């Protein structure tokens, strides 16, 4: 059953967000969550990932920085990239959207239906 689901990775420094997300969407996606950007990169490189979701404001690096770093690494899959943040779309994020570095921006708090529809329609 799990093989049919789309794979998704969610990077956020807040553990609770990860738990909440996983609990919400575990039926819809094959979810990998982590608070470490390095673990996330490692997972993306070694797995066939459909969606990359990341928080923007994190202590080690921002979501945009994480995605930028990821872009420099060659891997076969072409996952959709989404930033989920309580932060606004301004600055670095809007710039990243313009440069097509990210596909979508989702603001916290998210709602299950909207986020699921969004993920399934990109």
């Amino acid at each position: 059953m799990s093989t049919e689901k789309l794979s998704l990775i969610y990077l956020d420094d807040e553990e609770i967000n990860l738990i909440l997300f996983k609990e919400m969407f575990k039926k819809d996606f094959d979810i990998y969550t982590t608070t470490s950007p390095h673990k996330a990169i490692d997972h993306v490189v070694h797995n066939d990932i459909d969606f990359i979701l990341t928080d923007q404001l994190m202590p080690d690096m921002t979501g945009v920085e994480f995605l930028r770093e990821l872009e420099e690494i060659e891997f076969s899959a072409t996952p959709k990239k989404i930033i989920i943040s309580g932060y606004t779309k301004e600055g670095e994020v809007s710039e990243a959207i313009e440069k097509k570095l990210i596909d979508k921006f989702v603001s916290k708090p998210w709602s299950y239906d909207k986020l699921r529809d969004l993920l399934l329609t990109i």
Partner: protein
Amino acid sequence: MKLDLKKLCSFLFLIACFVAVSQGIDQQKVDYVHSFANNIGWPENKEEYVLKVITQDHSLTQTFKEMAATRQINGKPTRVSFSSHVSIPERLDILYVSSQYNGALQIIIDSITGKSVLIITEQSSDQQYIMVNLIGTPLEMSFEFNRANIINQNLQLDDDFNELGGNEINIAALYRQPRDSARAMEERSKVVKERIDSLNVNMAIAFKIANDQNEQIAKGREQLDRQNKILDSLTIALRDREEELAILEDEIIAQEGNLKKGRERLNQQAALIKQRNKEIGDKEKRINRMITIVDSQKYTLILLIVFLVFLVAALILAYRAYHARRRDARKLGEQKEELKDLLEELKSTQTQLIQSEKMASLGTLTAGIAHEINNAINYVHSGVHVLSNKFSEIKPIIGHVKDLNENDEHLKAKVKKIRDQKNELEYDSYESVIDTMINSIQVGAERTISVVKGLRTFSRAQEESRSEIDIHEDIEVALLFLKNKIRPTLSIEKDLADELPTIFGYPGQVGQAILNIIGNAMDACGNEPGSVVSIKTRVENDKATISIKDNGIGIKQEDLDKIFDPFYTTKKIGEGSGLGLSITYGIIEKHGGTIDVNSVLGEETEFKIKLPLNDQLLN
């Protein structure tokens, strides 16, 4: 024929010489003269020869007369004249000068210049002036001649002249001698001239003196004349006076009697005058005393007047000053009122300013605050979502449980069905999920509360009353609000005092000050890796100290003086109002505290706030 005649004459001359010795010296002289005349070449043929003899010798005169009468010269008659003084006639051929006149020889020569006159002298020593000069003793008479002088007179010497036996004067030697002697003479004359000059000078002086004396004498004489005249007139006057005196004497004698009487009367009057004088003296003294008194009184009066004038002036001045002061006081009061109003206005403006700045900074913080709240809300929102999902799944089981009745005969079967449903739902895993969700909701709610509380604390209006302030809480709120500024490259190090007593003041304001400084510290760090903002609190000397230090870009020395100035900012337009530090300074000052800044450009910056712990707060 003529030559023969001359030879004959020479011959005769020799005979004559011979005779001369015997006939006497005069005859010798005359014979010589005759021979000379015959042996001279005259410039023109003459009808007669004029001979002049200057001598005092009678016998010689006689001898010449005989010669003139008896003998001819060159076949022509001879006219002779004599004189005992030097005189030269207009017509003259031969001049004989006796030795007595040798001194005048030069004068004689000068007077015959231009005439062809032969001068014969005797015993002359002036060889340079002579023409023919008889020399020698009466026994051995001879002659000498100066050819140059003779020729100079336009006369010629015949060849036979030499045969007459005379000596020709060596003219060269002759001229050398006078030249030498002339030099000596010159020297002598120089000395003499000097002497004469000095004599002349003396003489001139003497003349001058003599002249002066003469003048004085003349003046003296004039004076004497004048005095004599005066004396004469005086004598006359004296005589007149004497006469008058005599008359007066009589009158005096007559008046003496009168005088005596008058004197007596005068004496009486004098006594009277004396008495009067005494009285007058007394009166004068009295008057003087009175004058003194009057003077002193006058002085006092003047002083009094001056004093009064001054007094009046002073009073006027004082009155005016009083008025002015009252006016000033009134003005001052008005100004004070105005100032008070202004101060109030200023205070309210300052308050407004602080509030505005706060709101402006809140604006910049919105994103961070929103992030914080959004996260917290997400906890609640998602938690509730999951929880409600789970609950809806559990709901049928709960319904079944609710329907259970202990008297139900199918109780066992129903319980079994519920247990099956529960197992089907993996309920055991649900419990932990539900706990997690509840926890998530709690955390979200708490975080929301704290953010809102922070916002409330931070944005409280200025007119709030003073209350206790927990500085650590303010620091936490600031860090919460500034969360979006915390770059991944930046770490926050907190070293907070174990127990920091609360201070008394306006909580919102102190929080604003702390937030401003921490925010600036974060800005100073930028994206530089290894950036650190360290916050340290301590209690030192009854003061709470808050040190906020960063290892960012630092502040330029020239900017350090200005950073607390309003509207001074080094940030880009839109990034800062330039009011943050100015307002921070005002807040700390208002709380009786101090704020110091130390910065090393490119290394670090430290802001140190000191706030008094005692609750006696400055207003």
